[in-house]
C-alpha cells in the first residue's frame, strides 16, 4: 500500500511562522529559559543558542554531550550535562565551571538569589552564594527533580518513595522533612503561594500534598506520563501535559479535591507534551507531540490560536521573553520558531 501525501491536509503556515525566524538545527532542543528579553536554549550536542530580538542568534559550545537541564541565576544561565559538568554561562558567552563529576551526569539544576543547586545521582549539592564549597545533601535514591519555593527558603527534592523538603533552621543547619508516597517521583514544584507541592510520577499521575497538614491526593486520568506542568497566575490553575487535552486543575479556594479540571482540546488528537504559562495571564502555551503549539485562554476554550503548525517532532521547549513580546519554540528534531507575538 502506498501513501498519497496529498491526501493529508496542507496546513498553511501560521502568521507567527510567516513573520518569525525558523531554523532546522537537526539536534534535539532539551531546554530553554528567558533571561530578560533574550532566550537561551540548550541542545543535545552541548551547544547553547542565545536569541535576542533584532540580531542573529549566538551559538556557544558549552558541553561535550547532551545539555540535560537548565535554569537561570539572575542574568546567567546554569546548565548541567551528561559530560558531568555544571556550568554558569553569561549572556555574552563567558563560561565558568561550577564543578564537574566526571562520568556522572548532572541531572538537575536550580538557583535562587545567587544560591546554586544541582543534583547528580543521589546527592544534591548546594552552593551558598557566599561560599566556595558546596554542602552535600544525601538521599537514598536517585533524584528526579529539584525546586525552590518562591522565597527560596525551602528546597524540594523528589526521589523514589516521595519528596524530601530541606530547610535551614535558625542556627543555619539543614533540616529535612519527608513526604512519602510509594513510586518514582520526577518533576517537582511548589505552588506560587507555597501551600501545595506537586510531583509528576513514573505512572500516568500527579501527586499533590497540601503542606499545612500533609494531606495528599492524586490527580489522575492521564493517557501518558505527565512530563510537563506549570502553575498559572497566582495559584489559580495547575496546567499539565500527558493527555490529548491540556488539563488545568483549579488551585484556588480549597484546591482541586473533588473538583473537575478544565480540559482544553486541540485539533489533531495528539498528546500535549509541553506546557508554558503566559506570564500574568490565565493562559498557556501548549506544545504537542506532532510539533504544533497553541496559545489558549484557560477560562475560554474557544479562544485558542495556533502559533506553530506541525513539524512531526515532539515539542520539548517553549519560553517567552520577560517583556512578553517574543516566543521561542523548539522540538526533538531541533526545529525552531523564534517570533514576535504581537501584530505590528
Amino acid at each position, binding site marked *: 500500500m502506498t501513501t498519497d501525501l496529498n491526501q493529508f491536509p496542507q496546513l498553511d503556515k501560521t502568521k507567527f511562522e510567516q513573520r518569525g525566524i525558523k531554523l532546522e538545527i537537526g539536534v534535539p532542543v532539551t531546554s530553554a529559559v528567558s533571561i530578560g528579553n533574550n532566550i537561551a536554549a540548550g541542545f543535545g550536542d*552541548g551547544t547553547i543558542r542565545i536569541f535576542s530580538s533584532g540580531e542573529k542568534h549566538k551559538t556557544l559550545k558549552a558541553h561535550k554531550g547532551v545539555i*540535560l537541564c537548565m535554569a537561570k541565576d539572575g542574568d546567567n544561565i546554569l546548565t548541567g550535562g551528561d559530560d558531568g559538568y555544571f556550568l554558569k554561562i553569561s549572556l555574552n558567552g563567558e563560561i565558568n565551571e561550577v564543578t564537574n563529576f566526571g*562520568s556522572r*551526569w548532572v541531572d538537575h539544576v536550580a538557583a535562587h538569589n545567587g544560591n546554586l543547586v544541582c543534583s547528580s*545521582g543521589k546527592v544534591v549539592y548546594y552552593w551558598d552564594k557566599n561560599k566556595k564549597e558546596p554542602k552535600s545533601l544525601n538521599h537514598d535514591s536517585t533524584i528526579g527533580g529539584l525546586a525552590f519555593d518562591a522565597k527560596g527558603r525551602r528546597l524540594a527534592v523528589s526521589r523514589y518513595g516521595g519528596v524530601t523538603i530541606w530547610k535551614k533552621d535558625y542556627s543555619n543547619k539543614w533540616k529535612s522533612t519527608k513526604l512519602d508516597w510509594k*513510586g*518514582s517521583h520526577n518533576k517537582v514544584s511548589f505552588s506560587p503561594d507555597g501551600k501545595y507541592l506537586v510531583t509528576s510520577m*513514573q505512572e500516568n499521575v500527579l501527586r499533590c500534598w497540601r503542606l499545612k497538614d500533609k494531606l495528599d491526593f492524586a490527580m489522575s486520568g492521564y493517557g501518558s*506520563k505527565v512530563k510537563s506542568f506549570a502553575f498559572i497566575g497566582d495559584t489559580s490553575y495547575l496546567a499539565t501535559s500527558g493527555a490529548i487535552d491540556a488539563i488545568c486543575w483549579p488551585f484556588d479556594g480549597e484546591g482541586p479535591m473533588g473538583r473537575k479540571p478544565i480540559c482544553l482540546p486541540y485539533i489533531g488528537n495528539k498528546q500535549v507534551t509541553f506546557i508554558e504559562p503566559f506570564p500574568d495571564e490565565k493562559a498557556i502555551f501548549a506544545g504537542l507531540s506532532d510539533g504544533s503549539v497553541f496559545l489558549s485562554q484557560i477560562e475560554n476554550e474557544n479562544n485558542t490560536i495556533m502559533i506553530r503548525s506541525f513539524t512531526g517532532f515532539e515539542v520539548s521547549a517553549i519560553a517567552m521573553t520577560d517583556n512578553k513580546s517574543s516566543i521561542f519554540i523548539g522540538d526533538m528534531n531541533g526545529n525552531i520558531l523564534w517570533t514576535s507575538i504581537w501584530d505590528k
Partner: protein
Amino acid sequence: MEETNRQVPVTVLTGFLGAGKTTLLNRILTEQHGKKYAVIVNEFGEQGIDNDLVVDADEEVFEMNNGCICCTVRGDLIRILSGLMKRADKLDAIIVETTGLADPAPVAQTFFVDQDVANKTKLDAIVTVADAVHLSSQIEDHHEAEEQIAFGDVILLNKIDLVKDENIEVVTKRIRKINPFAKIIKTTKCGTPLKEILNLDAFSLKRILEVEPDFLESDHDHEHDDDVTSLSFVSDTPLDMEKFQNWFGKLLQTKGQDIMRTKGILNFKDENDRYVFQGVHMLMDASPMGKWPENKKRSSRLVFIGRNLDTMNLKEGFEACKSE
C-alpha cells in the same frame, strides 16, 4: 506525521563476576567497527573501562504502582535512556551491563512498561557471559547464576581454553537443561564477532519463527524444587483459542513470578494464521504472524523456563486446551 525514528536496540549483558563481561565491553568500545555504541555500567561492576560513551548507573529497581507484583523496573535506566535519546549523534546500539548478582528481569521489564523507552528503544537480546570453569559450581551455589542462564538469548560460554573438552560437554548440557532455546557460543576471551551478540532482534516475534528453538520433547528428571528448569510441549492437534487464552492468562497471572521466560508458536482451530508469543514473567507479547507455510506441518510448540514448573500442572493444562 508522527516521529518515525528508528528504535535503538538495547542489549542486556549479564553474567557472574569474573566471567568476562568487562573483556567483552572493552572489545565493543575499542574495536574498529565504525559503529557508535553506548555502554551503561554499574559502579559496583568490574573496573577498567574509560570512554566517553560509558555511563555510570546505580541499579535502582522499583515497583510500578500498577498492582502487578512482577512489574519491577529499573528507574535509572528510564532516566539514562531518555538522556541518551537526546544526543546529537545517533547511537547504533546501547549495551546495559548488569552486575554479577542482579536479576536481569527488571531490566527487560523496563522496555515493556515505560512508554518513552518503548517508543525510542527496543530490547534486542539478553546476552549472558558464563565462565566455563566455574559455571557448574556457581549454579549450585547461587540462584542468580542459574537465573542469568535462564533469561539469556545468547550464552557466551567463555574461557573454554581452560577446560577439558569433556567438561565443556558437561557444562553445555547443564546450560541446555536450564535453557533450551539460547544460542551457545563457545569463546576464549569473549572472542566472537560482535554481530553474533548485537542487533539480534531476539525479542521480535518474527525472529522466533526464524530461529526456532530446540523444542525438546519433555524428558524431565526430577529436580529438587529450587532448580530452574525448562519444559516444552508439542502438539499436532489444533488448540482451542478461548481455552488456551483462559489457561495461559491465569497461569501467568498466578505463577508469573516463577515463570521466567516463555516462547511459543500456536496452531489454533479454524485459524489460518500462526500465532507467536514470547514473555518475560507476567509480561507477554503475542501476535498472529502470517499463514502457516504450505509445506510445513501445523503444530503448536511452547516452552517454559522457570522454577517449580512441575507444580503447575502444565502438561494437563496444555492438554486440556486441545480442540478435540
